[in-house]
């Protein structure tokens, strides 16, 4: 690889291991650790002070996630550029495998068991999609990116996995893939009028899409429109969630004092509805602190994206950050009754390994972008560097 280097810091093509470690974004790392710690404290409260229920498991997953994050961060961002399509291809194959297994097993299946660990291909796909799109737009100029013909490829890159995930059926992840893909298209400069057209088309397709939804999904959407429709059935979750949130008030009911969650009125309290518990016990203040942490994380991500001297890194960091934002927004909007109930966890807080590890791997990539921020990468391998 022959790179033209100008500035003094870029006098060396390759960074030494020590230099990499020294340039890790410790502020972002501490923020991530603090947020996960907050989540573990909430899980501790939910388990009535027991560490064996959720805290231990979650801590182990955090340790794994942390290790992966640092490892990914230390790997050269050009490596990630190289493997972007491979990762995407692998994710597609895994999704198809799950689909096939689902057909055989007659029922929803999201997991692949590869011996030592099980993982959800849809999670891998979230990262892989960002990587693939980042590589695609890294390799195309703005002019090309604004041409409809060029956009066929990224459109397929987004829609194929989204369709596969929707088949599982996993409405939440499908929406995430569409939103993240859309955000990246927006960031790389696709003309805004295409978005307007897409939104119009999407709205037009809604009535047809309705028929493809499962009964429980239709139920959730109808319930969202009118939560009191069935207060003991589909509306129960959201109603109890709102009661928990509301009863928390400004300062909350106090740590380990939330009645709604401790008395099991809240469903999924340790996973998708954990924000409710947090807001019940810590009140509006606690909720705003958490949202503040998220805003800081997103701002960090955006700053890293803007700071990168290579387009791949920019798109990668901004894409991952957008995905993180989608998690935050969809989850909180869902538990506060702004959006229908879809299965999206609260990032870095909800109990569950896959989402946590995926997100931390994502942040690993963001930090890798930061570590390798000054490396310029030619649009095409061997091409001129700007």
């Amino acid at each position, binding site marked *: 690889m022959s790179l033209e280097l100008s500035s003094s810091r870029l006098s060396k093509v390759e960074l030494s291991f020590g230099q990499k470690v020294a340039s890790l974004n410790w502020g972002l790392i501490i923020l991530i650790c603090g947020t996960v710690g907050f989540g573990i404290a909430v899980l501790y409260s939910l388990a009535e002070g027991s560490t064996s229920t959720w805290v231990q498991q979650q801590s182990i997953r955090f340790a794994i996630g942390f290790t992966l994050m640092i490892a990914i961060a230390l790997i050269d961002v050009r490596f990630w550029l190289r493997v972007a399509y491979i990762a995407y291809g692998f994710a597609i194959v895994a999704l198809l495998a799950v689909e096939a297994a689902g057909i055989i097993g007659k029922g929803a299946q999201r997991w692949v068991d590869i011996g030592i660990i099980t993982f959800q291909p849809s999670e891998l796909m979230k990262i892989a999609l960002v990587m693939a799109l980042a590589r695609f737009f890294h390799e195309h100029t703005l002019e090309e990116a604004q041409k409809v013909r060029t956009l066929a490829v990224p459109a397929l890159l987004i829609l194929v996995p989204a369709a596969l995930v929707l088949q599982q059926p996993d409405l939440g992840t499908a929406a995430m893939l569409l939103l993240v893909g859309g955000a990246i298209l927006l*960031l790389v400069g696709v003309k805004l009028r295409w978005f307007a057209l897409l939104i119009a088309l999407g709205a037009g397709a809604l009535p047809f899409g309705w028929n493809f939804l499962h009964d429980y999904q239709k139920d959730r959407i109808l319930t969202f429109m009118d939560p009191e429709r069935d207060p003991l059935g589909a509306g129960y979750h959201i109603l109890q969630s709102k*009661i928990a949130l509301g009863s928390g008030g400004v300062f909350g009911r106090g740590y380990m004092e939330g009645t709604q969650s401790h008395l099991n009125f809240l469903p999924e309290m340790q996973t998708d509805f954990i924000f409710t518990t947090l807001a019940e016990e810590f009140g509006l203040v606690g909720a705003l602190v958490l949202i503040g942490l998220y805003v800081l994380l997103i701002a960090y991500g955006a700053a890293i994206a803007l700071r990168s001297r290579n387009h791949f890194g920019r798109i990668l960091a*901004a894409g991952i950050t957008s995905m993180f934002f989608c998690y935050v927004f969809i989850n909180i909007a869902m538990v*506060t*009754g702004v959006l229908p109930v879809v299965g999206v966890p609260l990032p870095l807080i909800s109990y569950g390994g896959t989402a946590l590890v995926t997100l931390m791997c994502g942040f690993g990539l963001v930090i890798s972008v930061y570590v390798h921020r000054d490396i310029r990468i030619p649009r095409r391998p061997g091409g001129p560097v*700007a």
Partner: protein
Amino acid sequence: MERQREQGRYKTFVRRTVLVGGAQTALLSILVGRLYYLQVVRSEQYRMLADENRISLRLLAPPRGFILDRNGDTLAGNSQNYRILLVPEQTKTPGMTTKQSVDRTLQDLAKVIPLADYERQRILREVGRKREFLPITVAENVTWEDFSRINVNAPDLPGIVPDVGETRNYPLGPTLAHVVGYVAAVADGDVIDDPVLELPGFKIGRAGIERSSDLMLRGKAGTSHVEVNAHGRVIRELDRLEGRQGQDVFLTIDGPLQQFVTDRLGAEAASAVVMDVVTGDILAMASTPSFDPINFTYGLSKDQWDALVTNQRKPLINKAVSGQYPPGSTFKPMVALAALESNVVGSDHKVFCPGQMELGDRIFHCWKKGGHGNLDMAGALEQSCDVYFYDIARRIGIDRIAEMAKRFGLGTAPNLGLGTERPGLIPTREWKQSKLGQSWQAGETLIAGIGQGFITATPLQLARMCAQLANGGKQVTPRLVLPPDDDGRVGTPTLDTADQAKPLVLPQNLAVVHEGMFRVVNSSRGTAYAARIVQKGLEMAGKSGTSQVKGITLAEREEGLPNINNVPWEEREHAVFIAFAPVGNPRYAIAVLVEHGGGGSSVSGPIARDVLREVQRRDPARKGRKQLAGDNPPGARG
């Protein structure tokens, strides 16, 4: 060239990042606004809903008040009820459905205590209906032996919970069942005026004092606020407000005397009422045969119920207050007093009894075939001469007789609070005209003169009548429940409530009746001489009565009255007896009625004697004197 391209991309990227950042800020603002709305604006409302969610109000059943006798001994109390409960959730074992695991536990339980198959089916049915952590009753009133056996085996019986509840008990059992009554589960038709009635297993008074004093006995339910989780499981108690225990009710009944009377009545279909002639206290009120009130508490089986209902001796009826019988000759004091008070005849009025009396074309017989000869009023009472009373009844007429009977409380239902008191019947001309649309016949007056015909009275009414004869003609109101004393305490037994009321009849007239009733028992010519009390100072006075159930035909009379043992039970005469004692200063009155018992003096008289002797022996004023054991006088004959 490449640098410019890169610059263009970067500028666009920055612009778009700002755009996306702005959109994200806007979206997050929506969420923050939403949180503000939920957690600040509507916080109060949601706080209330959260409390409603978690706090549930439970009622605590108050312990039922006791029913005590005049000595403070328990007639109806609460005792511990050993129960076996089953919590389906706790039977669970991996790999089994709840039903299967419950069934297995029940099979294990059946090895320890007997468990009928239909009971097992019932429990399994309930398992499906109730939530899994709610206990199901497996058995109630388990014996102590079975209960301890289950306790010992508890580790091998997952889900089985031995429990101690409260249940009603009646130490005297059938002896006082008609008075005390019983409790039973709240039925669908009951008026639910108190939320406590909705508690599962709550029992209310269904008969007797248990029913009439139910509100007092019931008490007030306590409340307990408990925190429940989303499944209704109780997590902890937040606060508890103890209820008020039901008030105790003191009865005028003397438990041991009641037992004595019941034992004395034995297997007869009979009834006896013992009354304090001064206070009106009912010291004993027995009705046989009886039933065990405890059987009603948990519901009777159909066989048990059928047996009670079809029994021709009517165990469910309180004969003392509900049984209406012709009083027979025990009514004669009323006729005598009616004659004396109306000044139609004097006590020296004499009638010759030839054994029968003719009125129009009908012949009215005296019970004594050969006749009594010449008798005055006291003598006629002594020997219970029917002809004498035909004579004076004819002279005074039915309305005067009826007036006197009513003055002594006959014809109206006394109110003891049992709800089953019957009025009996005292006929008048007007009554017959309006009820039957027929005019009164002179012969009916004669029949009324010997307490037969239309006239009926309950044993309670006869006891009251006798008490009023005994106490100098003063009106007494029979009572069963002791009223609260001045301190507001309920049921301190008081003996003397001096009645200042004007006597019902003139003392000299009453003296004639007393004389006659004294001689009935204490004169050798008296109908109940054999039933006299020989102990000095305890002597009683009385009047026998034998009331016909079926008319005696002319043919029967000519053949001579058949031996009582040859007459079917239900056609035999009722044996009635009223008495009071001691004759010097009467304190106790009694009425005894043995259904189809035969002669009043021979069957009911000895019962009255034994009871009056017993009640005097138990008299608190006589305590310390020498024991009066039963040295009965020789053989009786009415």
